[in-house]
C-alpha cells in the first residue's frame, strides 16, 4: 500500500515537472537520472566504478539520431536502436575492462571512452565531427512531437521503463548475487557462481540503460555532439550518482535533479556561465570530503521524522 502511494506521488511529480520547470530541463533531469541509475547499478550494487559510461550514453545518442534522421524511424524505434548499440558495444569493452578491478577498472573504462571520443571525432562523415549531428527529428505516426512539451510526455514512458527495469534488476535474484560479488567475490565464487559472467551481464545491462537514457537525451536535444562522449560527461554522471547516494538507485535521479538545477541556475550568472566547472568541481570536492553517503539517505531520515 505504501509502495503504491510512493509510486503515485513519483508519477505525479514526473507529470507535473515540465510545467514547473521548462520541458527541456525536465526531460534532461529524467534522462540524466536514468544515466546515473545505470552507473549506480554497477557502482552501488556491483562495486564497479565505471568512469567511461559516456561511451554508451554517447554512442546510443549518435545511433538514435542517425536512425531517426536517415532511416526516418519513429522515436521509440530510434531509442531502442541506440540502447541496443550501447549493449553491443558493452560486450567487448566490458569483457576487456573487467579483467581489471577497483581503481584500475575505472581507469580502463575511462580510456576506452576516450578512444571512442577520438573515433567519433575522426569519423566526420558519420558523426559530423565538431559540428555534431544536427536536426534530429522525432516522429511517431499520428503524433505531433515538435514541441518540447509534447515530446516530454512521449519520452516519459521510455524513461519509466528504464527506471522500473533498474529497480527490478536490483531486486531480482541476479541483483542479490551481484551484491554478494561486490561484498566478497571469492565467497560468491566458492558458492558456485560464475562471477565473471555476472559482472559482464551487469555491465551490459548498465550500458543498455545508459544507452536508453542517451538516446532519449539526444532526441530531446535534437542534437548529438562530441560532448556526449567527452570524459567530463562520464565524470558528471558519477558525481550525480555519488551526490544522490551510492547504492540507493533512486538517489541517482535526485542527484541528477540537484546537479542540473544548479547548473541551470549558474548558466544565468555572468561569472560562471563560461566556466561551470568551478562550481561543479567544488561540489564534487565537498561531496567527497563531507557528504559521501549522498542526499538520498538524508531524505529517508527526514521522511521518517515526519511520520513520527
Amino acid at each position, binding site marked *: 500500500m505504501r509502495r503504491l502511494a510512493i509510486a503515485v506521488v513519483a508519477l505525479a511529480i514526473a507529470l507535473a515537472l515540465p510545467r514547473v520547470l521548462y520541458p527541456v530541463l525536465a526531460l534532461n533531469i529524467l534522462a540524466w537520472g536514468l544515466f546515473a541509475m545505470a552507473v549506480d547499478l554497477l557502482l552501488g550494487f556491483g562495486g564497479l566504478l565505471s568512469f567511461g559510461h559516456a561511451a554508451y550514453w554517447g554512442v546510443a545518442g549518435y545511433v538514435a539520431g542517425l536512425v531517426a534522421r536517415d532511416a526516418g524511424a519513429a522515436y521509440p524505434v530510434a531509442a531502442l536502436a541506440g540502447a541496443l548499440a550501447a549493449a553491443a558495444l558493452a560486450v567487448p569493452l566490458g569483457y576487456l575492462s573487467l579483467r581489471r578491478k577497483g*581503481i584500475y577498472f575505472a581507469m580502463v573504462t575511462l580510456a576506452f571512452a576516450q578512444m571512442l571520443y*577520438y573515433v567519433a571525432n575522426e569519423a566526420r562523415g558519420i558523426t559530423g565531427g565538431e559540428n555534431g549531428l544536427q536536426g534530429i527529428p522525432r516522429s511517431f505516426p499520428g503524433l505531433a512531437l515538435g514541441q518540447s512539451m509534447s515530446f516530454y510526455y512521449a519520452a516519459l514512458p521510455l524513461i519509466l521503463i528504464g527506471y522500473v527495469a533498474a529497480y527490478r534488476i536490483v531486486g531480482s535474484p541476479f541483483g542479490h548475487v551481484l551484491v554478494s560479488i561486490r561484498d566478497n567475490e571469492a565467497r560468491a565464487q566458492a558458492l558456485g557462481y560464475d562471477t565473471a559472467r555476472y559482472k559482464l551481464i551487469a555491465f551490459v545491462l548498465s550500458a543498455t540503460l545508459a544507452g536508453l537514457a542517451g538516446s532519449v537525451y539526444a532526441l530531446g536535444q535534437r542534437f548529438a555532439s562530441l560532448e556526449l562522449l567527452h570524459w567530463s560527461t562520464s565524470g558528471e554522471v558519477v558525481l550525480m550518482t555519488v551526490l544522490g547516494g551510492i547504492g540507493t538507485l533512486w538517489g541517482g535521479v535526485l542527484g541528477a535533479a540537484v546537479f542540473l538545477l544548479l547548473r541551470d541556475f549558474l548558466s544565468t550568472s555572468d561569472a560562471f556561465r563560461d566556466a561551470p566547472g568551478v562550481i561543479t568541481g567544488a561540489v564534487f570536492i565537498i561531496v567527497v570530503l563531507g557528504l559521501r553517503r549522498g542526499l538520498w539517505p538524508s531524505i529517508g531520515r527526514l521522511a521518517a521524522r515526519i511520520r513520527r
Partner: protein
Amino acid sequence: MDYLAIQLFNGLVNGSFYALLSLGLAVIFGMMRIVNFAHGVFYMLGAFVAYLLLQQVGIGFWPSLVIAPLAIALLGMLLERSLLRRLSGLDPLYGFLFTFGLTLLIQDAMRLRFGLQGQPYATPAELSGAVTIGAITYPTYRLFVVGFCLVASVAVWYVIERTRLGMVVRAATERADLTRALGVNVDRWITPMFGFGLGLAALAGVLAAPMRNVSPLMGSELIILTFAVVVIGGMGSIAGAIVAGFLVGVLSSIGAIFDPAIEGIVAFALMAVLLLVRPAGLFGSLETR
C-alpha cells in the same frame, strides 16, 4: 625513410612526456593509493608558472625549470596536508573522485582567468635552431627534451629502486602496516612524495611550454592517454611507466605514418591488447586487494 626517422623522433618526444607524467602518477599511487586525475592540471600549472615568471618577472626558461616544479610541489604538499589526508584509508575511488573535482575546478578557474587562447612561450636561445643528423634535420630543443626526460626518468628509477630512501618508499607501497611495525615512519614520507610526483608533472609542463602553447586545457586529454600508458606499463611500476611511455609515444607516431587518424587510438588499442594477453601490464603484478 627520412620521414620515418623524423616520426621516430617525434614519437620519442611525445613518449618523454608520457614517461614523465606516468612516472609521477606511479610514485603517487604507490605511496598513497590515489590515482591522481589532476595530474594533467598540475602539468598545465607548471607550464603556466613558467609563462607567468617570464611575463611578469622576466625569469627565463632555465630558472623556471627549477622554480616551477618546486612551486607546484609545495602547492601539492599543502593540498595533501589540508584536504587529501582526510581521504587516507578510504576506498581509492574517493581519491580519484576528489582529484577529478579538483581538475574541473582548477581547469575552469584558469579558463576564467586566462581564456582558452594558447599563449606562446619562446624556446630558450641556447636551444633554438636545428641539428642535422645524417640526412635529417631536427629541432635542437626537442632533442634536448628527449635527453632531459631520459636522464630524469632514470634518476627517479635509481632513487626508488636502488637507494635506502627508495627502499622505504617501496616497502611502504607494498605493506604500509608492516613497514610501520618495523619502526619506519611511513606517514612522514607521504607528503613529500606527493609533492615530488606533482613536481614531475610540473617539470613536464615547463618542458612542454616552448613546444606547445600554454593553455588551460593543455593537460586535459593528455591525462587520459597517460592512464592508458600506466595500464600498459603496470600501475605502480617505475620501470613500466618509463618503458610504456616511450613505447606508446613511438608506436603512435609510427601509426601516424600509415594514417594520421590512427595516432590518437594506438595507445588505447595497445591497452586493449595488453588487457587481453597480460592484464597486469608489461611490468606489473595483478592487484591482490
